[in-house]
């Protein structure tokens, strides 16, 4: 077998090769364990030493040359199929849609209460004076009914009001449903306020109402404790202290041990160690009566909390007015 011939043949062959598979076959044919180069070496193994030496060198030379053209071809193949990427180029993040932080927090709250068996209902935002005040034991002439100063109530020309609290839907549902009643009423409420970082004219509340034969402060305490722990996703210490609302008796204010300082006292809790989180109580018998339910047979517990404030606490938002700003620089952060 002529070495030169093999070389020529190999060059011709490799030029025609267009696919990786053929290139692999070529490698096996010439450079493989049973390839032509090996064959040549085995042919010369019985020749005299001198001849073996010269031929051996030539075969080696051939082997190197074939390997070279093989590698050249292989590289050219690699070059053709090589895909490049460069992640060092600057880019802007894809614009995602976003849900309002109040929506997200409201959903969380609804989910927690639903797991405790509270159904979610909604009430009207334009309310009659009767449902917003009288039904809740706030009679004509009571300061809470004032348009300005203490009452902060928005009145409409026809005498109706914009509800000042979600409690206004309590009696509506008492009239509609039969006990046991276990509902929460989230929604928008309105107050005549001079707006600042912590006061708004439009904001959100969540009202809870549970009416059954045996309902107690003890249940109230457990429900609210469970809710707060689920919401803040940590151990929470709460305390109930006396308060006053016309529509509950007894009335309590629920404080939560300040999560910022753990009760040591800091700016967030005005150095008291406690943060006021909601108002609650046992539904006043007049309110139960106004709902068409017999207060001798049924008792109720009720609570009302702001949705805005826990949202601000959760995300460390420092200005309540951002919620109704429609500012995407704010909203796209959530």
């Amino acid at each position, binding site marked *: 077998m002529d070495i030169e011939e093999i070389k020529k043949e190999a060059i011709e062959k490799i030029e025609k090769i267009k696919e990786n598979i053929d290139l692999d076959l070529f490698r096996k044919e010439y450079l493989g364990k049973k390839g032509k180069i090996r064959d040549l070496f085995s042919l010369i193994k019985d020749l005299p030493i001198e001849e073996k030496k010269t031929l051996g060198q030539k075969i080696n030379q051939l082997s190197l040359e074939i390997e070279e053209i093989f590698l050249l071809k292989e590289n050219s193949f690699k070059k053709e199929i090589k895909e490049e990427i460069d992640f060092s180029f600057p880019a802007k993040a894809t614009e995602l*849609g976003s*849900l*309002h932080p*109040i*929506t997200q927090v409201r*959903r969380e709250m*609804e989910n927690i*209460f639903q*797991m*405790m*068996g509270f*159904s*979610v209902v*909604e009430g*009207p*935002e*334009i309310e009659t004076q009767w449902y917003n005040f009288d039904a809740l034991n706030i009679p004509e*002439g009571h*300061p809470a009914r*004032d348009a300005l*100063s*203490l009452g902060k109530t*928005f*009145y*409409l020309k026809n005498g109706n009001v914009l509800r000042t609290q979600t409690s206004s839907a309590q009696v509506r549902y008492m009239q509609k449903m039969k006990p*046991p009643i*276990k509902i929460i009423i989230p929604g*928008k409420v309105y107050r*005549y306020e001079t*707006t600042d970082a912590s006061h708004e*004219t*439009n904001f959100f509340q969540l009202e809870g109402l549970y009416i*059954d034969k*045996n309902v*107690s*402060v*003890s*249940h109230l*305490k*457990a*429900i609210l*404790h469970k809710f707060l722990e689920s919401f803040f996703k940590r151990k929470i210490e709460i*305390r*109930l*202290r*006396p*308060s006053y609302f016309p529509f509950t*008796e*007894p*009335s*309590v204010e629920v404080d939560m041990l300040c999560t910022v300082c753990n009760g040591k006292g800091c700016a967030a809790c005005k*150095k008291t160690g406690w943060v006021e989180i909601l108002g609650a109580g*046992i539904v006043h*018998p007049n309110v139960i009566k106004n709902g068409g339910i017999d207060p001798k047979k049924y008792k109720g517990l009720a609570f009302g909390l702001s949705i805005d404030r826990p949202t601000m606490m959760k995300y460390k938002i420092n200005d309540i007015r951002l*919620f*109704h700003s*429609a*500012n*995407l620089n704010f*909203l796209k952060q959530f």
Partner: protein
Amino acid sequence: MIFSYNWLQSFFKEKLPKPDKIAEVLTMHAFENEYIQKKGNDFLLSIDVLPDRAGDCFSHIGIAREISALLNKKATFPKVKSKKVSSIYPVKVEDSNDCLRYTTVVLDNVKIEQSPKWLKDKLSACGVNSINNVVDVTNYIMLETGQPLHAFDYDKVSEGIVVRRAKEKEKIVLLNGKEYILNKDTLVIADNKDILALAGIKGGKKAEITKNTKKIILESANFNHKLISQTARKLNIRTDASIRYEQNIDPNLTEYAINRAIDLINVSVISQNDIYTKKLKPWSIKIDIEEINNTIGIEISKKDIISILSKLGFIVKKDMLIEVPTYRQDVLIPENITEEIGRVYGYDKVPSVLPLFSHPAEINNDIYWQNRIKDIMKELGYSEVFNYSFIGDEEKDSFNLRLQEITNPVSSCYKYLRPTIIPQLIKATKENLKYFERIKIFEIGKVFDKKEYICFSGAVNKGENLKSDLLALLNSLGINNAIFGKDEIKIGKEIIGKVGIRDGITFFEFNFEKIQKNAKDNKEYKIISYHPVAVRDISGLIDDEVKIEDIINKINEFELINSVEVFDIYKGKGVPEGKKSVSMHITLQSQTRTLDPETIDKVITKIKETINWEERK
């Protein structure tokens, strides 16, 4: 209100716990303490007395009574002797419902001068300015007992006191020099000529105490609290006196308070009067211990309940009939007593017990579908915004809206209730364009037309994909039969939403209820075919009045049809009158085999026949 620790201590022989301890006990069992401030050798406690207790606890004696009950320490209050003289000062109360009691004395030989230091110090601790020895004593007694007092200059009062309603447009100049015009809803203290004071609120200029005053008329009265409250709020004058009179003060307190004042002023009484036609007597409430325990959720023994009530000054009679002292006019029903027991016993001792699970929560369809829409909009890259429910004239005029007006708006920009969200979304889009290139926003919220309902609206600054977004939304809500008109979206004959453009901003607004009632949650798996999809583009003429949606629906009914998409509609040059040129992209696929050209052509031919298709010439 500000309370002095030393003043409170003065009612107890025993040493009281430290101020912070007192504050904590009050916070947990009565009223919240806001802060404690050290002043000289005293501590000032800012205590948030609850509104229903303003009648008895806007006073150091009131708070001392609470402390006494809560810490079980005996409090003793200054003793007074009644000062009877035979001469009667003329007082006329026109309506005993307006003025429950009018107690008065005339004091002679009064020398108006500066108050002694101890008195000035006590007033200043509680944030009250010193004026003169007489006015200071009236204020001191008010801070001590909760009973407001008022002093008139005897020589300036013409022939006795009349407690009456003001006449329409009657005027008074108050001590602060301001003139007020009154009406018949205002209760006043007058002589036989002029008004001397707004009852329970503020004194007038006419009978003001000056350094020349020699004799004084001291008033210790009890007025109808609703009347005082309404007048104070209406005239927007709130004074230390009015905030006390706005709640029920014990009418039996007037005599004690006036006698305390006489002791302090320490001059002789020359005449007096006490008009008190309907004496308030203690009342009784029957309580049920089991009911109290059930409401609180605890077992408090009868003995403990009796002890708590006794410490609070209630008298426990036979059969748990509870006699309420007249200074506790907030206690009227058994539930009020339950609250007294609960707070004194301590809510911290009430166990935390979850109620037994009864009924699972019911799904609220409104909220469910609102949440679905919000999630899909977010997937489509929209951001949820909230706007006020209020709009102003700017929106009213530029959108020609009919609106409900708010009687007392915070500003003229917010004087109407919005009947649509669109103007606010357009405004918000413009604002946000300062910072973003692409705006896609939406809001679901109440609007107020003839009635209140929920709107789902959105706006985008580049509108070319809005229809695709809305199609994706509706499909995802299971609504496949929506018809898109030029600027409205219908299901059948009902308009469910509208679209439009204003200042280059494209918007849409749906009536949420109409979407909700058509939305479906009935996804069902369709078998996936692995056979190739055949594509045919056809282009031709159809009658102009035929709706594209109808054509698409008809084509979709054919077997083997995978999808139909119209990519061009054209009317005008080259198209005959009454026709339109339509180009469609139709894909066909079989579940069982690869489609051969003959089968495909057959289907296409049939389609063309059915929809009266005319080839373009």
